[in-house]
């Protein structure tokens, strides 16, 4: 079974072509600058063939047309006919309260995703554009929607509600939804697979530490809490997002700096986080370098970043009533040994002990890095959201065909 996985952003599309017989990626690529000057597609085939195409792409539909054109071309293609494609899997950011699993896309589903544009105004519209385009270009081909929020739909109500007037929940659906669900789900499952633990019995905390970062508490295979909320600003300190913040501060700043909603939004989303504190960069590597050279604000940024994660691990250990496995993933979780060792510090009372030697220098590899006598297993699992989307798509399509 061959499946195309699409992740449509506002001016970009990431794609992968999977052969689900052996979960192999035939080709993957990136469309950039849709609707802008100098659009490009970079396509990479599994045999190493790599090409960059330059031209004009006015919208997502045209971008996807070109993706199909490249994938089916003689020169750089991986298929000879579109008939070979069995299904399309889409990443959709917000599935609201309606979708707790991936679903086959129907007109009804599309309508519902359109309804959730309100909750994810930057993400759901481009996701939908990909769905509309595929519907028109390859009509009749099954399409599956995999939601970033779905995995967290198992959170208990006391964890997802905010202590604001209840009517705001009924009126606007204001509650915690959480994001990175596909990643949290994949890495927690995969960790159990590697360790031979029973997923349905384990207490797992997963840290997805990338440019955006979130942490999830997973009990018996179900997400029971996560740090991102209605929007991706809440929780951990991120590259340019503040994470948790005293709400009073925001209204105070707005008054003192005489700024409006747009500026306040930019302030907490783009000027804050590691960049805002250090004044150096949102890139962890640059901040680590500066800290090594003695820049105290860089050190402060790192300390705050690590402390926030530790606080959340402690909180989620309490929420879970213990912890069996701590999973680290995302660009920083997979590559930064300093971050890994700092966030695992002082957890001996929980039975968590890191093996410094095992942790050292691991980059993007599945590996257990806790000490042999550690009660809690700490493991690095590189995330693979595309694979989850492909698998869900395969499962749903096979079920439907049966």
């Amino acid at each position: 079974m061959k499946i195309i996985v699409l992740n449509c952003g506002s001016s970009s599309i990431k794609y992968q072509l999977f052969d689900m017989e052996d979960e192999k990626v035939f080709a993957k690529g990136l469309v950039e600058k849709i609707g802008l000057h100098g659009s490009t597609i970079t396509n990479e085939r599994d045999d190493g063939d790599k090409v960059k195409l330059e031209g004009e792409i006015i919208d997502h539909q045209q971008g996807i047309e070109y993706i199909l054109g490249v994938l089916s071309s003689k020169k750089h293609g991986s298929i000879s006919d579109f008939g070979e494609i069995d299904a399309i899997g889409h990443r959709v950011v917000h599935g609201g309260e309606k979708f707790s699993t991936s679903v086959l896309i129907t007109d009804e589903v599309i309508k519902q995703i359109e309804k959730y544009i309100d909750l994810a105004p930057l993400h759901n519209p481009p996701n939908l554009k990909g769905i509309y385009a595929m519907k028109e270009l390859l009509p009749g081909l099954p399409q599956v929607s995999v939601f970033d929020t779905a995995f967290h739909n198992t959170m208990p109500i006391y964890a997802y509600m905010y202590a604001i007037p209840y009517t705001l929940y009924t009126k606007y659906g204001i509650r915690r939804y959480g994001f990175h669900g596909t990643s949290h789900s994949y890495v927690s499952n995969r960790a159990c697979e590697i360790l031979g633990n029973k997923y349905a019995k384990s207490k797992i905390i997963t840290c997805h530490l990338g440019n955006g970062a979130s942490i999830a508490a997973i009990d018996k295979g179900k997400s029971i809490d996560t740090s991102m909320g209605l929007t991706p600003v809440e929780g951990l300190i991120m590259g340019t997002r503040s994470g948790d913040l005293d709400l009073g501060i925001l209204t105070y700043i707005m008054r003192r700096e005489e700024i409006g909603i747009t500026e306040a939004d930019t302030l907490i989303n783009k000027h804050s986080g590691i960049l805002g504190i250090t004044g150096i960069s949102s890139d962890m590597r640059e901040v680590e370098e500066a800290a090594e050279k003695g820049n105290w604000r860089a050190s402060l940024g790192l300390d705050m970043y690590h402390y926030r994660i530790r606080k959340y691990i402690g909180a989620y250990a309490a929420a879970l009533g213990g912890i069996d496995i701590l999973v680290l993933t995302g660009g920083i979780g997979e590559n930064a040994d300093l971050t890994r060792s700092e966030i695992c510090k002082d957890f001996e009372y929980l039975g968590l002990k890191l093996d410094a030697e095992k942790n050292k220098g691991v980059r993007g590899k599945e590996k257990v890095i806790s000490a042999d006598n550690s009660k809690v297993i700490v493991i690095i699992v590189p995330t693979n959201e595309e694979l989850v989307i492909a698998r869900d798509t395969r499962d749903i399509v096979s079920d439907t065909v049966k």
Partner: protein
Amino acid sequence: MKTEVLEDYALKKRTRQKGSLKKVGIIGAGTMGQDIAVIISKQGIDVIFIDLTEERVDEIFNEISLRLDEIINKWGMTKSEKRAIISRISGSVDYNDISDCDLVIESINTKKAGSSKELRKNVFKKIESVVSKDTILVSNTSTLVISELAQVLDYPDRAVGLHFITPAITVKVVEVVKGIKTSDKSYEFVVKFAKFIGKIPITIHESPGNISTRLITTIINEACETLMEGIASTTSIDTTMKKGYGMQFGPFELADRIGLIKLVKWMENLYAEFGEQKFKPNPILKRLVRSGFYGKTSGSGFYHYENGLATAETITYPEIK
């Protein structure tokens, strides 16, 4: 890595798509033209502005840079966003440099007294002489009608009115004006463009002053009338309208922000068109303009300004104790 031409991988051969937007020209880069350039460039579209002299072009880049710094200082933008915005803007004194634009916006600004009609017509004519047949022409005028400007064009169906309201970067609405000869295609293109640059398009059949200028001039004129009759002070009138009706600025603050020369010009155009007394510039406005009190940028208008903040009223009446 090899680089190839994308079009060779199209599923079906197509010619250059109509309705695509890659480059926008702006004629006249005063405050409004600069703001429009920023708004468009922010969406990733290349912008070229045309102004009178090379020195002025350099100045304009400085002004844009300062304007963006102000926004950054108020947390509305990041430095890298500023770099990206400026990198997509270019300036020139040569109309030939806009020949490859898909859309050209006329936003000239003249301090000279009298109507800018002939000047704007001239600009339209010059634009048409260099651009392709498919290029859409828009004018940012509010009190002149687009049909009249379009008279000078060989293809008047491509002319559309697009009126930005000051400060254009933050105001969410634009008025999209359809002239008698404006084709549906051209009009839809501009409506789509307005949405693309993040504005809410208000569709309007052409009429001098559209909605915004027609209503704001009458409000300001009536405020002047109230002041002239000695009913209340400048500040009291402003405060009443702000606190009473939730206006962000009172009528006099607004007049100072718009600039009194421009305001008088708007009113004169509307008065000439409708012949109605309510549009006739109030004597107070003319008195202030003659005294060189042009509004906020000149340091004085209805208020005196220091560092951009109003410090005192210019016209005072005894308050009731």
